[in-house]
């Protein structure tokens, strides 16, 4: 990954729109990235950051969330790192596939499934000290 930008924000919901603005700007630096993929990344990163902010709910406000964004030749990588309590992604309650009417009995639990659909790659590293979600979107080779 080419060295990119690093953004640190307080764990507050009001900073979400700023994070999205940064991701859109960063992805837009490469003209080969299509608008639809920028939209995908915008939503996926927003979901990851929302979870990170929630995970900080019981921490002091000094603990900030770090978003790293790097543009490579063939990919955009965004990493969202929190200092929350961590979780086990394997043990998430199965709430049924997206896109099924019964799914709507739940008002939550859309975040990670959405990230999986939107990103080309996703990796979740979680431990007691915090969670890092890495999202990758491929850039088509410029012809």
């Amino acid at each position, binding site marked *: 990954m080419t060295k990119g930008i690093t953004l640190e924000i307080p764990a507050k919901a009001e900073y979400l729109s700023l994070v999205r603005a940064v991701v859109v700007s960063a992805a837009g630096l490469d003209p080969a990235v299509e608008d639809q993929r920028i939209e995908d990344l915008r939503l996926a990163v927003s979901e990851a950051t929302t979870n990170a902010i929630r995970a900080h709910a019981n921490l002091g406000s000094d603990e900030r969330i770090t978003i790293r964004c790097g543009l490579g030749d063939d990919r955009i990588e965004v990493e969202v790192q929190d200092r929350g309590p961590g979780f086990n992604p394997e043990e998430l309650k199965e709430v049924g596939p997206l896109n099924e009417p019964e799914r*709507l009995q*739940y008002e939550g639990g859309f975040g990670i499934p959405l990230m999986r659909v939107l990103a080309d790659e996703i990796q979740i590293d979680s431990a007691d000290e915090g969670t890092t979600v890495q999202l990758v979107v491929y850039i088509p080779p410029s012809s």
Partner: protein
Amino acid sequence: MMLGITQKDKDGWVVLELSGEIDMATGPKLRQTIVHRVQDGDTKIVLDLSGVDFVDSTGLGVLIGGLKRTRSHGGDLRCVGLTEPLKEMFKLTGLDAILSKENKTPEDIEGFSHD
């Protein structure tokens, strides 16, 4: 980015014209507005999303919550004016099937007068 909410009453429906983004920061404001209207007995609600360019999963939760709340009081919640990114998002999550009902403008909803 904030969420703007303009309320209008039209043919027995409450129309909430929304502008901005619906996420964890702004969702609670929309949820509250819906809750208050249903408390007031206004259970038929249309959300005009033509000015909304972003809805995340928290926003979806608010929409689903609003749908359940209005229906359980004998009303309904409809979404109109979806922009392309929102249509995509609604499709991905299966929400399009129950929320938008192919309606394109508030006027397309039964009970709405064309004026």
